[in-house]
């Protein structure tokens, strides 16, 4: 396992202006909420700034200089993002509003044209609502059947249940590559392979994994991958759907409007090719260019180094949190986990814990983290989650632990 010395954390931290914020005079922000949204380096902020100050124009349809430049930058960013996850072609990258919209796009278009009543879609018990509710909506509308890979007591997927589920001949297996609550890293390659062998497509929720681990959609043979810009150093308002070209080509459009068409008459239209077919209306131009800059930044540091750093921090956090009497950490040990630690503290509600941590500058998140079923599974309505990214340090985890002792003092 690599250690943080392969990354110059001090230099990295200097790139993130928000890390200088004081939550109150003399109390520096300790940002441990990157699982909800990451902070942004100046390189990303300045790139969007530059766009709005000197390059802003609508794309695709313009021949003036700004429009041509913006089009090139927008499509150039698509290329960077394709390369970042090793997609075979740029056109396999579709821009959406967020990872949630990406899942909905697949459910609406691939789902409605491929799933009939009784067809099975396999999910897991640790899914974020984003990869759960769209399928429930389709189940309500279409009568498709949802089945779930169970989560073990230890917080990993119960892979022994997969063969049985695959005997139901599902059309799709859709699952998270990294749980936003348990931190669990799931065996993506293994599940994709098994799904394909059973004749199912495999869709991966990469909202947590893509920011934290190297991703290779071709090596993993993933059919659909969804993720969000804002969790990987990019701006809000932008999500990504990767889909294999042949699948995207065969799918009907999602939304209708400008840019997704080839020809329109009053009573009929024909659709443009992939990916434009799925990008109706003016896209998130500045945001796409911003995500391109974020990907440049991540590449420069290196996803291997980031993964090693996040893992080292997580291991340290688990170790330190376990020392605190009354703390219960959810999810597996470090061998199956990275990037976050969700826990409860005996006698104090997670909401109160987060609130008091905040008074010590430590930003965490309390609640169900948009994953109610996995909380129900573990019998708690809420947890407090500390989540880590490339700019965090062990000292910040020490601050978290010290502040936890203050919580205990109040709820003694």
């Amino acid at each position: 396992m690599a250690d943080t010395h392969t990354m110059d954390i001090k230099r990295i931290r200097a790139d993130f202006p928000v890390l200088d914020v004081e939550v109150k005079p003399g109390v520096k922000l300790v940002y441990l909420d990157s699982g909800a949204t990451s902070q942004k380096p100046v390189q990303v902020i300045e790139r969007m700034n530059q766009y709005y100050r000197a390059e802003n124009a609508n794309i695709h349809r313009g021949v003036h200089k700004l429009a041509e430049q913006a089009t090139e930058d927008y499509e150039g960013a698509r290329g960077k993002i394709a390369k970042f996850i090793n997609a075979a072609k740029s056109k396999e990258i579709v821009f959406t509003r967020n990872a949630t919209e990406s899942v909905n796009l697949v459910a609406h278009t691939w789902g409605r044209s491929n799933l009939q009543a009784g067809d099975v879609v396999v999910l897991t018990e640790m899914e974020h609502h984003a990869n759960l509710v769209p399928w429930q909506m389709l189940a309500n509308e279409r009568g498709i059947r949802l089945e779930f890979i169970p989560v073990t007591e230890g917080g990993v997927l119960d892979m022994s249940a997969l063969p049985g589920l695959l005997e139901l001949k599902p059309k799709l297996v859709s699952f998270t590559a990294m749980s936003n609550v348990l931190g669990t890293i799931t065996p993506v390659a293994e599940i994709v392979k098994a799904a394909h062998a059973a004749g199912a497509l495999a869709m991966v929720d990469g909202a947590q994994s893509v920011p934290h681990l190297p991703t290779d959609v071709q090596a993993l043979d993933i059919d659909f991958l969804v993720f969000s810009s804002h969790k990987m150093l990019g701006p809000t308002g932008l999500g990504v759907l990767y889909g294999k070209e042949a699948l995207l080509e065969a799918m009907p459009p999602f939304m209708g409007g400008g840019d997704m068409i080839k020809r329109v008459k009053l009573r009929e239209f024909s659709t443009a090719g992939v990916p434009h077919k799925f990008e109706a209306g003016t896209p998130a131009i500045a945001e796409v260019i911003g995500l391109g800059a974020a990907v440049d930044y991540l590449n420069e540091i290196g996803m291997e180094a980031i993964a090693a750093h996040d893992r080292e921090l997580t291991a340290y956090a688990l170790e330190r949190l376990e020392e605190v009497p009354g703390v219960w950490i959810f999810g597996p040990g470090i061998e199956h986990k990275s990037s976050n630690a969700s826990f409860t503290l005996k006698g104090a509600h997670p909401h109160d814990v987060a609130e008091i941590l905040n008074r010590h500058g430590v930003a965490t998140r309390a609640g169900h983290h948009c994953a109610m079923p996995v909380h129900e599974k573990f019998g708690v309505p809420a947890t407090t989650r500390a989540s880590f990214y490339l700019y965090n340090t062990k000292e910040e985890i020490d601050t978290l632990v010290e502040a936890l002792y203050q919580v205990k003092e109040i709820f003694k």
Partner: protein
Amino acid sequence: MDDLYRELIIDRYQNPRFSGTLDPHTHSYEDDNPVCGDHIRIDLRVDDKDVVTEAKFTGEGCSISQASADLLMEKITGMPVAEVRTLAKQDILDLLGIELGPVRLKCALLSLKVLKGGVYGLDEVMSLDELAES
């Protein structure tokens, strides 16, 4: 001690005086705060003079939501329903005696929302958002 975590609140959270259910009851209602999953159920006994004779709550949630529920039950015990209807955001803040940010404000107001839903017998009198902005 931290302002928000006054002794009163920690005490009521750790040792609620009005926790429990009432059977029989004249009113029972429950709801949750979708933002954090806090849940409150309130049971009331209202007599034929339209006065609350007994009030109890059960629930799960943070110290603010549970303490405010407990304090609210205490306040309404013996109160005419007509007066219960007039209770507003400020009454809860007065009971707690603290300032609250927008997120915790909703924690504090959950019991009031449930109470109003129960007493008025309506599903959604005012959303938590509206109550917080009121």
